């Protein structure tokens, strides 16, 4: 019979056991996006050979940045975390990361290590490399007599207008208004730095950025892309399959997603081309993810063993097969199918520029995109939008300038 006293005893012992130290042969890991959803497939061989259990938590990309900062503030970061490489400066500023063993940093593509290095020191191990390209429906592009989307803005616009003329109820491309990537991909083509004054002020009024902004605005003004956010557009792959638009700018995640049975995108029905630039394709924005170990990890050696396992060439090749995420290890690239899409990504990754290494970068892209959205919806002209972007970014960077002036940060 359950008496009240016994119930209380049970409850208190349960509470105590919840506080007991966790099993030492256990590593906690946060993995983001599609990779996180598929990570359980990767782990059994690791647990079998090392005897280390991995407590995996899949986190959607949309909430990941918030969750990491809150996790740091609340002292609940996992042992191993998958990071967008652009977030490293922020987490490093917080002192949340430990430096990896040098052995894990050899054999990566040139540039991959640079992306995880801050002030001469690496703070994570590169895991996936990525770029931003345009995926297109071969049939819809061929209809307007182009073999592939042109790589300079003027010719690209002519092609896109031809598609829209042919199908007035459809669009040439899809630039989701809450995605900063398309705008920044165009801006990277112009080669102008995004920040100036020791990364203490915005440089969005530069001629290069304004040209990219004008091109971005024109895509909407000419109705080449619908004015929608991700929440309304629904499944973009289904939109592409149904021909709602002909070109989907995306990163390598497309490769894995296109293979998913629920999207039913016929292999061979699509191709990939570089992002158009003002005079042909130029540099791309460096993208990618890395694996870092938290400073509060209870067993750093076990955590690094997991990172070593996950970043191995064979495993990176296996991940490409599942999600489309491209490897960072040169040896893994030699195992990839030698098709034009892989070659395109290889050239794009080799020719990419890293985003400014400031902790505020995530917020800057978010605010710049907010202004760009207001511009696209007709509230601002190009010059006014660029001025507003600089004003907002200068405000965001005010504290950084104050710290720079006092030599507290470099």
């Amino acid at each position, binding site marked *: 019979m359950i008496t009240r006293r016994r119930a209380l005893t049970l409850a208190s012992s349960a509470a105590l056991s919840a506080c007991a130290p966790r099993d030492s042969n256990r590593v906690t890991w946060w993995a983001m996006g599609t990779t996180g959803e598929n990570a359980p497939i990767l782990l059994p061989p690791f647990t079998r050979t090392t005897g280390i259990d991995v407590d995996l938590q899949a986190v959607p990309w949309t909430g990941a940045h918030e969750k990491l*900062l809150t996790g740091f503030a609340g002292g609940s970061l996992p042992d191993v975390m998958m990071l967008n490489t652009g977030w490293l400066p922020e987490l490093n500023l917080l002192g949340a990361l430990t430096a990896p063993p040098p052995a894990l940093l050899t054999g990566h593509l040139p540039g991959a290590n640079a992306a995880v290095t801050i002030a001469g020191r690496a703070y994570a191990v590169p895991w996936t490399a990525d770029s931003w390209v345009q995926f297109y429906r071969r049939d819809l592009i061929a209809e307007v007599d182009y073999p592939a989307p042109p790589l300079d803005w003027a010719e690209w616009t002519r092609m896109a207008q031809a598609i829209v003329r042919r199908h007035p109820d459809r669009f040439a491309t899809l630039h989701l208004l809450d995605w900063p990537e398309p705008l920044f991909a165009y801006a990277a083509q112009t080669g102008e730095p995004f920040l100036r004054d020791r990364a203490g002020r915005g440089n969005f009024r530069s001629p290069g950025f304004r040209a990219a902004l004008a091109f971005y605005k024109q895509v909407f003004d000419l109705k080449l892309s619908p004015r929608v956010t991700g929440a309304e557009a629904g499944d973009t792959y289904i939109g592409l399959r149904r021909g709602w638009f002909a070109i989907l700018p995306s990163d390598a995640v497309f490769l894995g997603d296109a293979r998913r049975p629920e999207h039913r995108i016929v292999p061979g029905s699509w191709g990939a081309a570089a992002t158009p630039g003002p005079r042909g394709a130029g540099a791309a924005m460096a993208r990618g993810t890395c694996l870092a170990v938290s400073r509060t990890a209870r067993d750093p050696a076990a955590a690094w063993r997991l990172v070593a396992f996950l970043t191995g060439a064979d495993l990176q090749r296996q991940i490409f097969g599942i999600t489309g995420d491209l490897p960072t290890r040169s040896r893994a690239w030699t195992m990839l199918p030698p098709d034009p899409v892989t070659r395109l990504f290889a050239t794009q990754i080799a020719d990419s520029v890293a985003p400014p290494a400031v902790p505020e970068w995530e917020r800057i892209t978010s605010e710049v995109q907010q202004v760009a959205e207001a511009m696209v919806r007709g509230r601002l002209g190009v010059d006014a939008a660029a001025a507003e972007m600089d004003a907002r970014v200068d405000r965001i960077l005010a504290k950084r300038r104050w710290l720079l002036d006092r030599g507290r940060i470099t």
Partner: protein
Amino acid sequence: MTRRRSSEARAGLAFTIPVLFATLAFLVVPTVAGLLLSLTDFDIYALADLANLRLVGSGNYLALAHDPRFWHAVWNTLIFTGIGVPAAIGASLVTALLLDSATVGWKPVWRLLLFAPYVTTLVATALVWRYVLDTRSGLLNAALGVVGIAPVDWLGDPKTSIPATLIFIVWKAFGYNMLVFTAALATVSTDLREAARLDGAGPVARFRHVTLPAIGPALVLASVLSVANFLQVFAEPYVMTHGGPAQSTMTILYFMFDEGFTWWNLGTASAVAVILFVAILGITAVQARLARRLEWL
């Protein structure tokens, strides 16, 4: 005599101290801490190293006063409250009056159905409403199409996003006030209604002079709670639209959440919290005074 009173006082103190302590620890201390935090520029740099924390006095408040995004959020919140409170109270009052009518059968079933949205998980209902409001395949646009109205981009157009979100919020929240009104209507004396009817009072006159005075206190309570709730709208736009499109559903509380927990500008976020606290306190005080002045209470 005095001895007995002092022992009573001791007992009273013993019973109230835990509550007073809890109020102090979980209400007064956080409020004061929030006020103090709003005078600093606590941000991600301060999170990294407390030496980077600066005392900025009224700096956060001045910056907010010059921040168009904040005023935009204030304006959106006022629209939400200005339309939402009358709509929500009107909807609950009308349904409560309908359910109170003697001609309606199956009352418990109706009450259950109409109260169900209030107790259903917000995220689940928001997802369903997103399907209902979908531009291309939504139920609402399909219904409008039948009467020849072109599809409306409910959640995607900054002009319709607030009305669309409001429809959802009112649908979700009116059940609670409906129950409050139903309970209040049960106290209306049948004799009084009958007497008024025999004296020749029409339905409007009966409502105005018999029903309304009886449910007056419930109406004031509902309006005070609804105003406070609508000033703090957050979860619905967060789930439905993420504050978009073009920041058109960004409310004060959403703005505070964004500053505080997305970007860790806790100084700014605390300043917003203090402003909202003072605003709700002021509005509730005005409502209480107005309520006292109204005769029929």
